[in-house]
């Protein structure tokens, strides 16, 4: 793999994202809402044991859950399918560049702008907290931002997998939005419904939660921030008692990594090996 070619694609992809008005709108909205969260969080003295950086980070978790998966899934889902649909992928491949280089370049090139917008949102809110006195543990705030970045990477990988298997951008966007609904909106309801309907045990409910990367992010973030893991309910108590607080965190972190690497690896193989005829 030629790193120069990868970097060329990274630069092209990142440049296109920055010029994309939807991406700009997303970045502005996320940053403004992060500031709004900061304002609301600072107006109340303490939320569930958090204060300062911790309180703001806890408030940002829901914002991240709403925005980051949507932009990551959609960006990933259109990155290859749109080029396949309009023929630029075929044209690009007529030049001395390999599919591996294109794939890696696309992943990094679309991830960097998403990470930038997450950093901007967390950065602005963090500066606000610091100006306001900077109470709390800044490392926990950074951990939440880091987990948000990992969530973006995992959902971007899933989006890329969708993209590799879609001939049309409209179809891949539809699947991406469906997955967003499934992970974010229906995720909790699904776990609750399945638990009630099938009478699942606590360990099975915990296992079920691990099947949703957004749920994994949520549990890991709360665990990273809170001195009181009881707020996660019986499942949280079970997990902490079984694996230990640090053990659960690393388990969740590992699962988020797997949620990134498995779809990404499969998408890579599908793009470069399995689906050669689907240019």
């Amino acid at each position, binding site marked *: 793999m030629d790193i120069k070619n990868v970097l060329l694609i990274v630069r092209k992809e990142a440049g*296109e994202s920055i010029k994309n008005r939807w991406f700009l709108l997303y970045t502005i909205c996320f940053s403004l809402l992060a500031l709004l969260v900061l304002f609301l969080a600072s107006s109340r003295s303490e939320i569930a044991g958090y204060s300062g950086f911790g309180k703001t980070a806890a408030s940002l978790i829901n914002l991240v859950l709403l925005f980051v998966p949507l932009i990551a899934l959609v960006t990933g889902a259109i990155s290859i399918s749109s080029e396949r649909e309009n023929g*630029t992928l*075929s044209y690009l491949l007529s030049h*001395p560049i390999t599919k591996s280089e294109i794939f890696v370049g696309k992943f990094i090139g679309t991830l960097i702008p998403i990470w930038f917008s997450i950093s901007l949102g967390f950065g602005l809110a963090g500066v606000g907290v610091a100006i306001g006195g900077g109470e709390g543990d800044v490392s926990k705030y950074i951990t939440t931002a880091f987990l948000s970045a990992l969530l973006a990477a995992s959902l971007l990988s899933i989006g890329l997998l969708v993209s590799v298997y879609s001939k049309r951008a409209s179809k891949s966007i539809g699947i991406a939005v469906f997955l967003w609904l499934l992970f974010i909106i229906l995720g909790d309801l699904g776990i609750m419904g399945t638990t009630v309907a099938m009478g699942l045990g606590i360990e099975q409910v915990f296992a079920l939660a691990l099947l949703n990367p957004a749920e994994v992010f949520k549990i890991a973030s709360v665990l990273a921030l809170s001195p009181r893991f009881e707020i996660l309910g019986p499942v949280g108590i079970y997990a902490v008692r079984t694996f230990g607080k640090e053990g659960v965190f690393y388990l969740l972190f590992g699962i988020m990594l797997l949620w990134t690497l498995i779809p990404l690896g499969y998408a890579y193989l599908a793009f470069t090996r399995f689906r050669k005829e689907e*240019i």
Partner: protein
Amino acid sequence: MIKVKDVTKRFGNITAVDKACFSLNAGESLALLGVNGAGKSTLIKCVLGILDYSGEITLNGLNIKENEKEAKSLAGYVPQEPLFYDMRTRDVLGFFGSIRRVRSSRVDEVLDLVGLKEHERKSTSELSGGMRQRLSFAIALLSDPEVLILDEPTSNLDAGARGDFLNLIKEYKNKGKTVLFSSHRLDEVDLLADRALFMESGKVVFEGRPENLQELLGLKITINLVVPQGSVERAIGILAREGFHNAESNGRGLNIETDSKQRVDVLKKLLQEEIPISDFKIQEPSMENIIDRIKENGY
């Protein structure tokens, strides 16, 4: 320079290219001809390594599957429809120039060569069809490749832009470079090709030289002349006397079916006899006619 041996490409149950074989020597120009869906574009995409296939394709001895990058570096490609990222003209050239590792001054050279220097700051979406095709040609020439591969490069151009573009290709060919192109126009084949290869349903059905193609296949052109109604019968008589027996009235003048080489003779004879020709059009045989004739003759 290019060797294609038993190349087959299937999309599901459809065989787009069926055991195609041909070779192209350095400095030679080969036209792929056929109706839409004959497999020309698919074969070109196989040669470029864009599509996977069974069989063997080598460019300058390099197997396109085994030496993908090296083989692709040898060829410049002009697609049927120019496709670019939404960048400025100069930036598009810079992007592909970087992939091909050419020096940055080469971008200026090719911009000058295709006459796009004054449009270098325009976004590709602001360029006309002709300009976009010239940009596509400029990208193909960036690394001064030994082989130029063009897929129906003039099919979306108007007459003026088409003429300009064909001249650019002709100039490139005259430098001794190798050209492989697909077309469904015989006049382009006459102008650019040393050899022509006909495809039908994915198969190569006929190969010949353009200069004797029409003669070999017994193909005729049709000349449509616009003459006053009162002169039609006289014109038909003059032509019959001179040996052109396939002339008939068409309501606005007359149609004459003849060999391509005799097109000027027909016009000369009628003008010598002072037949007032107000307009004329020459209809080349269609690709369907040619394929039918190839089948009839069992080539």
